């Protein structure tokens, strides 16, 4: 008998007999309804408490804000999505305030060393956010691959204020995640961190040292 069948058989022939199935009451996850402004405030407060940075912008001024943030950090380049509106707008802006714009349009193995060693910052879209935990929802795509938000030392995420949910549960229900999950779905809640050395917090241990959220209101 295969290990699979042996394990399943042992579980099915449980000596204690059938187990009762308890009810699960999810109402504890319900939150009182809130306004967009309240959710933005809560999101900002929570993500800032874990070292994330939030800048509130409009669809008119976000590029200027972005350029300031990048130049204050001396970023030499910015990895942008090729097809997404964010990338297109940045490339069309033709601003000399912005650093060199790069695109992730080849499989990782052909430019891995360059991505790991030479890219200073990246910008990606989000599928919304979660106010209670200060989280960004990201479903990486061929246009915004997984490593885009992980490898560069500075990650900038664009979040539409109207797409903020109260809780993770609300977000997954509203967007009907159970109907089909992507290869990779992520909640990102701050920059990479560790407290493994005597509980002292240090940032950027493997992923980005800085997470900057541009909230478009």
């Amino acid at each position, binding site marked *: 008998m295969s290990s699979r069948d042996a394990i399943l058989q042992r579980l099915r022939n449980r000596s204690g007999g059938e187990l009762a199935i308890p009810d699960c009451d999810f109402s504890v996850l319900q939150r009182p309804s809130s306004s967009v402004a309240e959710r933005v405030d809560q999101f900002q407060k929570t993500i800032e408490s874990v070292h994330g940075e939030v800048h509130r912008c409009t669809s008119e001024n976000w590029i200027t804000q972005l350029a300031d943030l990048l130049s204050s950090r001396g970023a030499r380049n910015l990895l942008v999505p090729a097809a997404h509106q964010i990338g297109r707008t940045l490339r069309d802006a033709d601003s000399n305030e912005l650093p060199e714009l790069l695109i992730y349009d080849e499989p990782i193995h052909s430019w891995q060393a360059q991505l790991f060693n030479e890219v200073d910052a990246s910008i990606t879209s989000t599928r919304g956010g979660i106010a209670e935990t200060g989280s960004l929802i990201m479903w990486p795509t061929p246009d915004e691959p997984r*490593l885009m938000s992980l490898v560069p030392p500075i990650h900038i995420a664009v979040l539409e204020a109207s797409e903020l949910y109260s809780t993770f549960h609300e977000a997954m229900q509203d967007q009907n995640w*159970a109907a089909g999950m992507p290869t990779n779905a992520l909640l990102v809640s701050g920059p990479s*961190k*560790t407290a493994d050395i*005597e509980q002292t917090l240090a940032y*950027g241990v*493997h992923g980005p040292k800085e997470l900057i959220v541009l909230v478009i209101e």
Partner: protein
Amino acid sequence: MNQATQDPHHIDVKEFHPRARAAISDPKIRQNFRKAMDGLITKRKDAFEGMDLEALRELGANIRLRALANLPDLLEQLEKKLSENGIKVHWATDGDEACRIVRNICVARNAKTVIKGKSMVSEEMELNHYLEERGITALESDLGEYIVQLAGETPSHIIMPAIHKNTGEISELMHQTTGTDLSNDVEYLTASARQQLREKFMNADVGVSGVNFAVAETGTLCLVENEGNGRMTTTVPPCHIAVTGIEKVVGNLEDVAPLLALLTRSATGQHITTYFNMISGPRKLEELDGPEEVHLVLVDNGRSSIYQDDELLDTLRCIRCGACMNHCPVYTRVGGHTYGTTYPGPIGKILMPHLIGLDEGRHLPTASSLCGACGEVCPVKIPIPDLLVRLRQESVDGDKLNPAKVRGHGAKRGSVEALVWKGWSWMHARPGVYRFGTALAARLRKLQPGQLGGWTEYRTAPKLAAKTLHERMKERGQ
């Protein structure tokens, strides 16, 4: 005896007492753990502020119970869904078989280097050791695990593996093993490790990770982490192998939300970890990164035995947050290594006897004051103290009519102790004998020895009263 320098693969779990004695007299261990655990207790409390914690724990417990009630069906559903998504599922009855499966995948890919995200099941399997012996390098990438591996040790806490070391010790270790400068600057040490490990990620052939929740409904593997090493491990190498215990499956995607809320708050007092990584398949044709191959190894290793008994089954609800150890007065005093087991602290004391048998793990259920803190903080309401008592009974039970439920059943039973208790129960069932016996003991109290073995090492001996309770009651005329 220095517990840290022992070969971690040859620890005799039975030698708990000498290790405990050594740990208690080491002020550094006590300081490191006390400081860390106090911090975690406060942070946990703050993180649940304003939430209906009891209702949330109730939901967490019920979700885990529901998953266990449907366990075989859910495992089959998980396998089906994962296969549809392109993830290959393997089954292992024990740690050795799981190690062989991982190695065979490596051999088929001609893989020489494995990079690992944190996985307690892989510690349980002793995977690193197994692979190293067969010429495959396995490198830990979680900073705490990396430190512990540099030192040639095992984790002393399931969430914070290197909690037993302070900054000075880590600096010295990294200086000696990797050549970094001596420094008490945690940022410098962390940045050095980042640099060292980035090279390794780029060159690794296989990434091995654990799993926090496996969702049957969608075929999704969920990983909780702060550092980003888990995302690196599951994204950069061309092959990802996840290993997990068969009990980690949950039915619906929705179940993940409350369990995640409980897990991170209970573990480290965080509302959520930096990354919550949900993997549902290998890289698709049009995608530019991610592994070409994803495997899941489902490990039984004694879990299906625990599953047989209605009471012991509760052990399998565990979501591995570590809150029970953070709140345990014994764990805080003796540290994680003293237990000599993969899982230390209260959860280790109720889980390990099943994995290694009550013979080997005989001292584990008694290494507790039964204060109940572990059960009170458990996010899925595992009645840990009750299970400790149950395992104590199992370890001394000699009743032939009581079928053994745990391997090593009756291992701690001694003939003298059994005889004493037999006499005790015989006397207590006979009021006349009882009165005579206690009256005799009161008369002979002068003969009572002042030293009572281990008991009087730290306490004064209890003195028998001059008169029995019955005599005094009689005097009062009642």
